[in-house]
């Protein structure tokens, strides 16, 4: 029942959107006053204030505000950036692709590595390989992503200047060929993707390893061995296939974490993705940008989650059935 997945995602999205709607209005006192943060020294200009007022339609009743808000979102209008004086949509369109690139690469690398490592570790449970990997992964899990990023930065960009320090591209560079552009982007992508990938890797590895271990203890593994099947078949077709299910099922959650971690990593490497956008918006208390960016990220994650669930339905015979 595929539409069920879509329905659930739509309901979730609506919930998220409503929370974003409610937040500024839930703050005590004049919402506009809440928008003026006590810590920032810069006051909001009357012009910006007027913009905000019309944007939030604070003079209208709540229901009408909500209706207007939803219709605005449906048209793809994410509001107007106070600090940069452009539609939020434009900013998001400029920054989101970089985050998607970073996130996509990291998740792919993390998925492949963690699956192979998890299967291998579980197969040799208790032996040096397993213990070593477990220890390493546990240690990785204990490090905040920005710490990992900082370490990588220090080691591979400062002490040994192998990779660039910051950014997604060399500024003002001219490329001889599209390959050159790809290469440049790639070089800048390595460290951030490595940092993000490593932070995601540990939980994925543990999931695969533990599911695989419990798979290996099942009767069907004994039967598989009794049938004289080579280890390769046992590991991947019988054990791995079972471990694949929870792995795919949790992709949505992983994307959720990934998006959060990417903000931290982007900050360390000054990578021009959504993280940078959000942080700048926080500094200037540019609320429309914050909200818009958050919605864009939420939508991304929900899409990944929906896609993962659909794939799950194909993979899991208990659901796939005739």
């Amino acid at each position, binding site marked *: 029942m595929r539409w069920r997945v879509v329905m659930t995602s739509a309901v979730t999205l609506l919930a998220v959107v409503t929370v974003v709607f409610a937040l500024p209005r839930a703050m005590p006192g004049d919402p506009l006053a809440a928008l003026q943060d006590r810590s920032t020294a810069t006051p909001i200009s009357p012009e910006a204030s007027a913009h905000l007022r019309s944007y939030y339609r604070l003079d209208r009743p709540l229901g009408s505000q909500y209706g207007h808000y939803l219709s605005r979102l449906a048209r793809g209008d994410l509001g107007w950036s106070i600090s940069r004086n452009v539609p939020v949509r434009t900013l998001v369109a400029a920054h989101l692709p970089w985050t998607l690139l970073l996130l996509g690469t990291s998740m792919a690398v993390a998925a492949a590595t963690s699956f192979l490592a998890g299967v291998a570790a579980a197969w040799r449970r208790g032996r040096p390989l397993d213990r070593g990997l477990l220890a390493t992964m546990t240690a990785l899990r204990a490090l905040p992503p920005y*710490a990992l990023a900082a370490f990588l930065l220090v080691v591979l960009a400062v002490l040994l200047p192998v990779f660039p320090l910051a950014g997604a591209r060399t500024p003002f560079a001219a490329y001889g060929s599209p390959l050159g552009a790809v290469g440049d982007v790639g070089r800048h992508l390595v460290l951030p993707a490595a940092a993000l990938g490593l932070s995601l890797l540990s939980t994925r590895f543990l999931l695969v390893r533990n599911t695989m271990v419990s798979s290996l203890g099942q009767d069907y593994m004994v039967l598989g061995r009794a049938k004289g099947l080579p280890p390769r078949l046992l590991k991947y077709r019988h054990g791995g296939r079972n471990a694949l299910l929870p792995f795919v099922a949790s992709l949505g959650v992983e994307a959720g974490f990934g998006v959060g971690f990417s903000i931290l990593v982007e900050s360390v490497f000054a990578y021009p993705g959504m993280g940078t956008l959000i942080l700048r918006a926080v500094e200037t208390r540019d*609320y429309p940008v914050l909200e818009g960016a958050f919605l864009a990220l939420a939508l991304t994650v929900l899409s990944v989650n929906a896609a993962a669930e659909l794939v799950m339905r194909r993979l899991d015979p208990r659901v796939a059935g005739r």
Partner: protein
Amino acid sequence: MTVVTAVGSRPLRPRRPTVPRIGWIGTAILGGFAALAVAAPLLAPYRATALSGRPLEPPSLAHLVGTNAVGQDLFTQLLSGVRAAMFVAVVAGSGAALLGGSIGVLAGWWGGGVDLVVMRAADVLLVIPRLPLLIVIVAYAGPGLGTRSTVIALTFWPEAAKVLRAQVRSLRHRDHLTAATGFGAGPSHSLRRHVVPEVGLVLASALVAAAGRAVMLEVGLAFLGLGDPNQASWGSIVRDALKFQGLFFTRAWAWWLLPPLLATGLLLAGITFIGLAAERWVNPRLARHVSGGRP
């Protein structure tokens, strides 16, 4: 270890596993940090924001960890970070675990509609990117430590809820609970006598996990600039360090950037160790396994 037992033969008494060594190491680390947090006001030589030395001084007797670009004592700031981290670990961690735990227990016990609604809510929270959500909420609500802890507790309850719900659900229909109902026991009696003791261990392990998560989040938020401006946190120290343009042209990164990172790693390691020990103690797995190797 597989034992040749089956239905009908006397079961061997399961060996109660001892607490693994790793648990003691974790407790020691955590204990150390807790002591530091309590003793911080006595230990700090200066006020955190005071310009007590020359900028970028290397570590010395006067400044144990050196100073930052403005001349503030880093040791004091680190101590302040200990307090912040421990505060959040305790408040936000237990908040998330207890809130999630209670929700999970009730959902598991009542089942039906309540369970469905609660689980949907939990699933929604788990999927949406929570760090960005936190950022947005904190941007509105203010950066105080208390505020941040509360918000963390309110957004990170699903993990504990799911674990406890699963536990309660498996207990719910055990025969000894049905028997208690047969004696005329109401839900409060059954919950108290039978469910709570069993879930205690699981709750403890969820609590440890939540504490670890909370520390990571607090430090992360501070790193992003959403920290309390009046209280230095390890995250904010790292942020200040990375913001300083010439950081890597001097050797100052060694005493400015590294110590807060290491401190964070150490505290989280301690919490993780305790978590691992708790997990191993609660779940002795007697699984045999097929593996490559001798027949």
